[in-house]
């Protein structure tokens, strides 16, 4: 535990203890980004990024995913939701079908 240097330390000769909290390393790895219909891409990321950024990095525009149902690892998500390495990100078009 760090403590504030005390002016008395100079007199007593005690070295103040200063602990520096290490900055957590940002995880690096792949996410899988899929749009149905549209395609699937693995994207390398560092740390957390938004769903929208994930799709952009996978080659999809904001318009491409506009109106789609978004999921991260099977759970409903928004374009602003965060994803991290190992996540599966999905956009599925809302089909009205089965019109024949």
């Amino acid at each position, binding site marked *: 535990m760090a403590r504030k240097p005390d002016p008395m330390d100079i007199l007593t000769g005690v070295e103040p203890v200063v602990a520096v909290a290490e900055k957590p390393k940002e995880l690096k790895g792949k996410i899988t980004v899929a749009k149905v219909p549209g*395609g699937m891409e693995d994207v390398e990321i560092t740390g957390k990024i938004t769903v929208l950024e994930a799709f952009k990095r996978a080659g999809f525009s904001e318009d491409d995913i506009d109106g789609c149902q978004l999921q991260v690892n099977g759970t409903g998500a928004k374009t602003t939701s965060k994803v991290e390495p190992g996540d599966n990100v999905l956009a599925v078009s809302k089909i009205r079908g089965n*019109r024949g």
Partner: protein
Amino acid sequence: MAQVDYWRQLGLFPPRRFKKPITVIGAGATGSYIAYMLAKMGCRDITVCDFDIVEDYNLPNQMFGLRDIGSKKTEAMSRIIKEQTGTQIKTVCKAINKAKLKGIVFVLTDTMKSRKGIWLSSLKNKKGVELVIETRMGIDNGRIYTIVPTDKKQIKFYESTLYSDKEAQPSPCTRTAIAPTVATIGGMAIFNLINFFNGKSYPYEILLSLDPCMVISRKY
């Protein structure tokens, strides 16, 4: 009188052992194909529900032929299936609402409103219904849901996939349906029934894209 011999499929689907009633709601693109394939496989207790008539623009992607134009879809399906398989199906020529359904139910209508209405009025938490299979088709993509309608987890998941017709993405009139997509979605939907019957696991959600080709499925 000639009879159908099912011996080439007995290792996977022996029709005599399958005694569950099947209701096919909607006899349009996927509905007409699915009812036809079920009868071809030897399913006997099939009820087809639809209130529509056959139009000329239905012919390219539905089971109907030229002679069926102007007929009720249910009557045309009944005749086609009888001629092709010898099976006499039951028909209901009206919209399904608060119906007492049993066994396996395919929901193959063409609006989200009707799907939601049928789900809430006739399927959700209904103990007689063992399995609900619902499909949504685009011209080159689709979704297939296979749900036990008394399972809380599955109900919650399925309801999270429902959206309004207003939210649904419109397809241009000339990119609505084509036979190979219909047959692919119909075949996958029926295969879930076969796996259910055989006690195997099956995906509760299939997301299908045919261009580019991609299948994403999820199992419990």
